[in-house]
């Protein structure tokens, strides 16, 4: 019999709905596994076991009376410790917030609660979601379940680790430069950063008003689609949030991908790409070809500057948010985060405004050029082997910016462009560490990206492999 925690979110959900397993049994199985793994992974900030088991009993009782709570009835999840829940502390990975209970609950958590999800606790993250590795000097580093000496990726480090280690079935993260996609890729799970504005950020910690996006980590594209069906769409509490109607993300997943044009970029994304990773990416293209997709070369315009343009927006906005705390509580920041949070002081207003002002034109040129030639852009997610925690613990050494830039090379451009992008497991390297591909689409094409990813996962088994001996 399959261990309950090995099931995908959707398979578990089906069993729960049929009452083949109870929500309490599943939640208890998760807590049991957490007790075993957590000492080595350090992916939880807080466990809410008593409340979670009570909530599980509640959904079990409801179902016994014929009441299905929603699409996530009884499904255990946990989220990056920056989605606020009224009365609870969200540390945001920092000392600064550690004593401040939230006064409201985030829209995304409310939607998950309403759909019957069971919230097990909160997950480790990079301090203020500001770093791609998963180091955290305040909470302790989170570890990669495939190799405890390796980074889990950040900033949604606990989300990647907890989903990959089969401690929870899905997790919310946030992505302002790759913070959903990197930990998903590095831990070997699926990560979706939707189009800017598709998910409400009400009640979530802000890093950069114009760049931030919430996102989903789960084991399969189908799992992500299920969660998106619950959380996507307009929220009057967040004026950045789209008013467009959202599709049923699960509905089209079983349709084939014949004639879908998969674009392979001819520049930038394969710069510095490790040989084994390039090989896995080429193999994934062969899979798409066997599924009837058309593989086309695509010239991507202006990509080389997009990561820094993103920073030209993100840093001033971040510094504005942190200015008072930098002034009054500087020593409560760890050194690298202090430096990064203060970097906006060095970016003049005309530079910030120019980067913002140029954004629509650059987006238009990118979409016209790339998505006339293909339906989905296919790139490496991380072009280098997963680094060790010790190798990337660079603090404020001179290589700090280069290290961060290398990790965010393929992800940050799409934060500036606001485009949807997702990370999909595509195999393992010689060290047994996950390799992932990235799929990128035109705005609001999440359903299409999920369909392409689901078709790939129907043909491959990478996403079914789980880390052993944690």
């Amino acid at each position: 019999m399959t261990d309950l925690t090995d099931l995908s979110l959707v398979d578990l959900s089906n069993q729960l709905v049929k009452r083949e397993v109870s929500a309490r049994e599943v939640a208890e199985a998760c807590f049991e596994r957490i007790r075993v793994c957590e000492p080595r992974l350090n992916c939880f900030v807080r466990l809410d076991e008593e409340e979670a088991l009570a909530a599980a009993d509640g959904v079990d009782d409801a179902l016994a009376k014929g009441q299905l709570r929603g699409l996530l009835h009884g499904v255990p999840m946990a989220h990056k410790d920056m989605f606020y829940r009224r009365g609870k502390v969200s540390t945001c990975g920092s000392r600064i917030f550690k004593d401040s209970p939230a006064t409201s609950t985030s829209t995304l958590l409310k939607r998950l609660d309403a759909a019957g999800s069971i919230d097990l606790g909160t997950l480790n993250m990079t301090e203020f979601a500001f770093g791609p590795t998963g180091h955290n000097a305040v909470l302790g580093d989170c570890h990669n379940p495939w190799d405890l000496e390796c980074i889990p990726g950040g900033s949604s480090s606990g989300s990647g680790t907890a989903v990959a280690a089969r401690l929870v079935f899905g997790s919310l993260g946030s992505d302002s430069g790759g913070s959903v996609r990197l930990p998903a890729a590095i831990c070997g799970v699926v990560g979706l950063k939707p189009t800017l504005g598709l998910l409400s950020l009400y009640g979530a910690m802000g890093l950069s008003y114009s760049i931030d996006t919430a996102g989903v980590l789960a084991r399969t594209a189908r799992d992500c689609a299920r969660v998106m069906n619950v959380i996507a769409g307009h929220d009057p509490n967040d004026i950045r949030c789209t008013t467009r109607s959202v599709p049923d993300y699960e509905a089209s997943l079983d349709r084939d991908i014949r004639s879908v044009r998969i674009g392979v970029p001819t520049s930038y994304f394969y710069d510095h790409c490790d040989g084994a990773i390039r090989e896995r990416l080429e193999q994934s293209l062969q899979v798409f070809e066997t599924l009837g997709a058309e593989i086309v070369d695509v010239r991507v315009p202006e990509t080389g500057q997009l990561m820094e343009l993103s920073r030209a927006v993100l840093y001033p906005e971040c510094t504005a948010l942190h200015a008072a705390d930098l002034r009054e509580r500087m020593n409560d920041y760890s050194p690298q985060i202090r430096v990064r949070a203060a970097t906006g002081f060095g970016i003049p207003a005309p530079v910030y405004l120019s980067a913002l002002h140029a954004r629509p034109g650059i987006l238009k040129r990118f979409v016209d050029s790339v998505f006339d030639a293909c339906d989905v852009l296919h790139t490496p997610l991380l072009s280098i082997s997963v680094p060790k925690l010790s190798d990337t613990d660079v603090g404020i050494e001179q290589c700090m910016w280069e290290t961060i830039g290398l990790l965010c090379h393929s992800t940050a451009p799409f934060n500036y462009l606001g485009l949807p992008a997702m990370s999909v497991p595509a195999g393992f390297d010689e060290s047994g560490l996950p390799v992932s591909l990235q799929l990128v689409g035109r705005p609001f094409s999440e359903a299409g990206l999920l369909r392409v990813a689901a078709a790939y996962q129907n043909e491959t088994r990478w996403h079914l492999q789980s880390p052993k001996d944690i």
Partner: protein
Amino acid sequence: MSETNFDETLPIILERFGVRNLTSDEVRRIGAGAERAIAAVVASVDNPNLDVLPADFYSLLELLGDNGVSE
């Protein structure tokens, strides 16, 4: 990347904002990070098109929105 461009001006800006007690290495890293972003903007952004405002970005995302592969 040179880290010297900000050596004189950045401490003054930080002081103005009341951000004190950063080490010289920290100030240099701030300068280097800012310099990279500034260089990218200088290299890639021409005269702004005043017909397009930053706030139009969200409208443009809607306008360019998917009508293809997900249907």
